[in-house]
């Protein structure tokens, strides 16, 4: 005796958020039933294991049928097959496009290609996110990437409109797309301490300051690529380290401002030239795609690590960078104030974000 067929269909599609999450997390039906049993849902309605199993199967089927629609969320709103209240639709979409930070950290900056997809099982073992869930997340990234790649206009807004995502999630996806497009290196050991949210923040900074769309959103170009002209102009900043006078002047201005305000003043004074050289060199090299990829690793190696070894506190760091940036404005012979601000604004906030253990 066995149940051959067992379905339950509601006029309003019934979806249990807990089961949805289990499904998204890639649990098999049996595992999901186990999790639910442990969760104590059985006590709620005098349910038995069979009831749970049947319910879980039903829900899984529903989700599978919905999945096709979730691939283009706009369809969910005007499809006729499932009657789902709007707030539920939003929940479905939001959760479907949600991802694990641990997983995304692994693929961040990698090419969203078949090759990467083949490595997903390794990532799955490493992150203990189920392979099924990894695939869904990866496919989501790829799908968003594909759609947005072709579109003009602001990246975040495009994602939000096409995938009906919340602002936060849309920004995260923008970061992922941006990283994937520019292939930023994030996997090196030295960068391991950085979380996805750190990178997402930096990506946000880069997108809103360093892309073409950042200066002029009427431009028929996308937010995905860095502003080539700007990168070219960054070369001009080299004068700050190549011109001896300027370098000394800059140093003395910064030191004057910092004196007495920090415990690590001596270290700051001592490493000023090195740090300044580091930051300016990063800027000057950004015209090379290869160096763009290494942007974050460079920041860590050339700036964050030296500071950390000198035991700067985060406040020290802030203080130093603020004065470092502002002092350049007082330099009479330094003419590239606009580029400097555009560069340092982003670098400053990125470093702030990245300066932690």
């Amino acid at each position, binding site marked *: *005796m*066995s*149940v*051959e*067929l*067992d*379905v*339950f*269909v*509601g*006029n*309003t*599609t*019934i979806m249990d958020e807990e089961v949805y999450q289990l499904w998204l997390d890639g649990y098999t039906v049996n595992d999901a039933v186990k999790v639910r049993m442990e969760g104590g849902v059985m006590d*709620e*309605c*005098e*349910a*038995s294991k*069979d*009831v*749970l199993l*049947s*319910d879980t*199967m*039903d829900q899984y*089927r*529903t989700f*599978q*049928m919905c999945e096709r629609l979730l691939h283009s969320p*706009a*369809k969910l*709103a*005007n*499809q*006729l*097959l*499932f*009657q789902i*209240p*709007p*707030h539920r*639709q*939003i929940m479905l979409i939001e959760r479907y496009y949600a991802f694990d930070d641990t997983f995304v950290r692994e693929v961040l900056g990698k090419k969203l290609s078949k090759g990467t997809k083949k490595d997903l099982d390794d990532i799955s073992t490493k992150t203990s996110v189920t392979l099924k869930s990894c695939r869904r997340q990866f496919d989501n990234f790829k799908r968003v990437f594909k759609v947005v790649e072709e579109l003009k206009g602001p990246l975040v807004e495009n994602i*939000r*409109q096409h995938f*009906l995502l919340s602002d936060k999630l849309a920004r995260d996806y923008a970061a992922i797309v941006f990283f994937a497009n520019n292939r930023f290196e994030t996997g090196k050991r030295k960068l391991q301490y950085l979380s996805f949210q750190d990178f997402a923040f930096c990506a946000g900074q880069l997108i809103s300051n360093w892309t073409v769309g950042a200066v002029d959103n009427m431009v028929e170009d996308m937010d995905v690529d860095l502003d080539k002209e700007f990168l070219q102009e960054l070369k001009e900043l080299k004068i700050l380290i190549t011109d001896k006078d300027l370098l000394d002047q800059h140093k003395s201005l910064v030191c004057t401002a910092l004196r007495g305000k920090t415990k690590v003043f001596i270290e700051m004074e001592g490493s000023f030239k090195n740090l300044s050289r580091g930051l300016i060199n990063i800027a000057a090299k950004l015209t090379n795609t290869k160096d763009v990829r290494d942007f974050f690793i460079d920041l860590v190696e050339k700036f964050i690590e030296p500071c950390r070894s000198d035991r700067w506190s985060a406040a020290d760091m802030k203080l130093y960078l603020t004065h470092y940036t502002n002092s350049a404005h007082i330099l009479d012979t330094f003419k590239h104030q606009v580029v400097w601000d555009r560069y340092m604004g982003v670098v400053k906030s990125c470093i702030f974000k990245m300066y932690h253990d």
Partner: protein
Amino acid sequence: MPGKLKAKIVAGRHLPVMDRASDLTDAFVEVKFGNTTFKTDVCPKSLNPQWNSEWFKFEVDDEDLQDEPLQITVLDHDTYSANDAIGKVYIDIDPLLYSEAASVISGWFPIYDTIHGIRGEINVIVKVELFNDLNRFRQSSCGVKFFCTTCIPQCYRATLVHGFVEELVVNEDPEYQWIDRIRTPRASNEARQRLISLMSGELQRKIGLKVLEMGGNAVVGYLQCFDLEGESGLVVRAIGTACTLDKLSSGSAPNTNTHMHPNTAPASNACNSPSKDGKEPVFVEDLPSSSGPPTPFRALPTSSSPPPFSPSKPCSRQSSSSDTDLSLTPKTEEPHSVRCRPGIFLCPSSPILSTDTLSLPGSGSVGCGRGSNPRATTSAPLSSIQSDSALLRKSVSFTEDLLLAASGMGSGGSAGKEAGPLRTLLRQQTQTALEQRGASSSGLLLNAREFPFFTLTSFPPGFLLHVGGVVSARSVKLLDRIHNPALGNTRSYKLLDWNSVTADEPETRDAWWEEIRQEIKSHARALGCHAVVGYSESTSICEEVCILSASGTAAILNPRYMREGCLDIGCTDHRFEEPSPPNCGFCHIPYDELNMPFPAQLTYCYHCRRQKVPDVLFTTIDLPSEAAVAGKGCLIQARLCRLKKKAQGEANATAISNLLPFMEYELHTQLMNKLKLRSMNALFGLHIQISVGENMLLGLASATGVYLTALPAPGGIQIAGKTPGDLSSEHISSIQKRINDTIAVNKELYQINPPKLFALDPEVFCGINMELAEEGVGSPIPEPRHRSRLFRSHSESSDELSELDLSHGKKDAFVLEIDDTDAVEDIHSLLIDAPPPTGFYSCNTENMPGISNWTSGVQMFTSVRVLRLSNANLTNQGLNKIFTDLCENLLKSFYFKLRSMIPCCLCHLNFTVAVPEEELIQVTVTAVAMTYDKEQTQEKTAEKPVNKGSLEAEEQLQFPLELCADSSSSNIQTASKISGVGESTNMSPRVSSLERCSPLQEGRSRSLRSSRSFGGSSVTVVKMTPLSFLPGTRIIKYLGIINMFFIRETTSLREEGGVSGFLHSFIAEVFAMVRAHVAALGGNAVVSYSMKECVFMENPNKNQAQCLINVSGDAVICISETDQESSASTANTGQTGGSETDGAT
């Protein structure tokens, strides 16, 4: 007469990719109606084509408009090969043919393909220009409104109820063995869908014609069913109740319908009416004088001096005995007896007899009816046990005594016993009926009179006077015989074959049903009732065997609401003169207590103390709103499996016939026990389904139990061993304790605290009279299957009862006898039904007794479960257990799934069982979960028994008075004018709230999504419910009937997620298509929704499956009750209105 149908194809969206190379589609559309086809241009390379076509115009007969659906086919253009069909949309344009329903059909329809399911959507606009047809010879019946709802629709008022209408049409099934056939299943399935759509249209038109001829303008409680008879064809049949309805809100312009549709063609026309083509010869032959209009009425008195269907003494007794021996003693009937159409056939001999003997001599037919009373049914099976041929003689004589006591089986017998009074009564009835007939003029009136059946399950207050009990009839037929005229035993049927073979078929089916209906009618009469309400018909087919079933509730209706002459009403009966209090009147017995059709235990009504009531009441109707109840109701189910040897043809039919009475009996016993166990005394909405499979029969009885305060409190259940020492007395007492505990728990659970005033403590008295019971029941009869049996104590007889006064405190003593271990099992299974978890209630009726303060949460659902039995040797006991568990587990699943809605009630739980294959059991359930306000319930129930009755009685007064004026003066116009005054005040708020309503919903969803600002259109939310109302809302417009039939097939079952995945998506698709059609009509809800058919077939080895689904319902516009608050105060009087709005807010 012509009408002009216009269709415009606007656009498509989400189309599938048909061209792999370009990932796009070159779509165009074919629009077909009748034989005319139009095409749109090809919209190249788009998945969201914009055709924006011209208006395609079809000039057609209105007859065709009713029959044919508009067919829209979306295709992919292909230059080199044949165009590929993407899918189809069938649009039933019937709703556009009512004067007041939808005016345009416009919206997105899912494009459906039998293989691929829904493939995108198409936006279509359809309009109809109809020229009024006043031709009385017309064959169309445009304008007759159809309602699935089994009560008077919310925004209408019934001015007259005309009575029963029925029709059936038959055709060849384009495909009956899909798996074995070599042809594309898609082609034949599409042919099938088209054919059934056509047949339903035709059927509806024919029923409409009958209604027009009767002078009505609407059919309420329209129930259409398909019989997929396999090789012998496809039957589409429908029954309904013809009414004249008045729209309530149309105060300023009343009676548009009556003007538009001139009623009642003269009788002669009725006879010639083409809708009755097949029957015509019979009719003419029997009534040769009916050619002139005035004659038919004259002819009647002379020829029908013994009323054709009044059960006169001798014949009915004979019929009852023939019930029992039918299957065993094939009689070769005199051919002419077959020809008689009871009611029209005017032979003075006994037509009733002929209905029973009519059944195929070889096919074996058993009628097994049943009255309400438990005691009656205890003996019912006995008569069938006699079907053992060896015992035949004995049993017949036995019947003399016992059958008279039996309700159902004894319908005839009991009538026979009834001496003088009833007989004179009947005579009077016929006389009055004949007199009345002078006024009305339809030949079809005869038909309505012939079967005073009503498919309605709830009635306007004052309509239902008394309820007798459930009457049912079943008959087993062999299907394949019809198509083999060469076989000897089809002889009798051949005589019906007047013209051709095809004409023979509907005639045959008609005769079958007529036979059943006659039986029902005689059962009702035996209960002293002149009408049957809550009437329904069903079939169960397995191979060539078909069980036809009909059931209803015998009742006495208030003649004032009937069309004159539509009932045989003995107005002289003293019992009708005395008005009964509305909250208990319907419980009062309609039969004569001195000549009871069965031995019932009567007491004086616990409510009014004036008249007698039975101790238990079973009905198929809904609980009347005015009934006084204590506590809450609950779903009660009896489930039964019976193994049957595989057999062919006659032997099979005989075997089934022999099993049926046993099953009915056991189901009844179970129901009774479970009712007692819940400390309740009445069942409403009783529906007994018996389904036949190759090697087993399944029986499922569902009903809603309730405690009627007018009826005596139910006694307990007493356990007794057959012989002392048979089982340890300890064991018995432990079981007894469990039962008593369960009863106590249930009392608590369902809050059954009958008003103390009349509540005499139920004193359970022990079954001392065991010996007597044994004897009475008749030990000579072998009882292989009944190990535990329920006896009623014989300490009282009905004669004594008549002298009992109110102080009579003896309660039923049910003795459950244990004579072996199986009986213990039975008791265990009795106790196994788990009560619903806290926060849940369940019922299978429209209204949940004890809950009325619904909040707006509504969730309709359909669930299907198929169980495969292992091939191990199963016993009946084992099977019962499996089947019971299946049903219980389903319920548990529902409770669990819907737990977020607590407190909530599952209403209208409709279980359907089937045996699709040898080892499969399929259970299909459709129901609605509705939330309610817990706080108010408790308050309400507390005050209910005291207050509700009087309050409601006051409230109800309005209606009957209004109606009385109507029917007596028969001047409808003035009456509706009067009512119009009251209504007109409501007009403006209603209209404005309508306008507010639909944009409101869209607006809400839009605003929710506004942050996302996607430009796509939102989909109208369409609520669905099997009930006739949506809580918290008010229906302001009925847009027409939804009646859809779909077939889905697959050849890639595994890829689609197996059988469950396949069916899950199909059901979801069906819902989607229903919603889309309703939305296109401008509606936002479907009420009285039901899934009539869900036939699932699979062939996993071939990776194939197929499913047929038929759904129906009423498309409506409803508006939130809160919008109505201002008008609610005027429309509803007193607290009911107030509390309803409270509940909604």
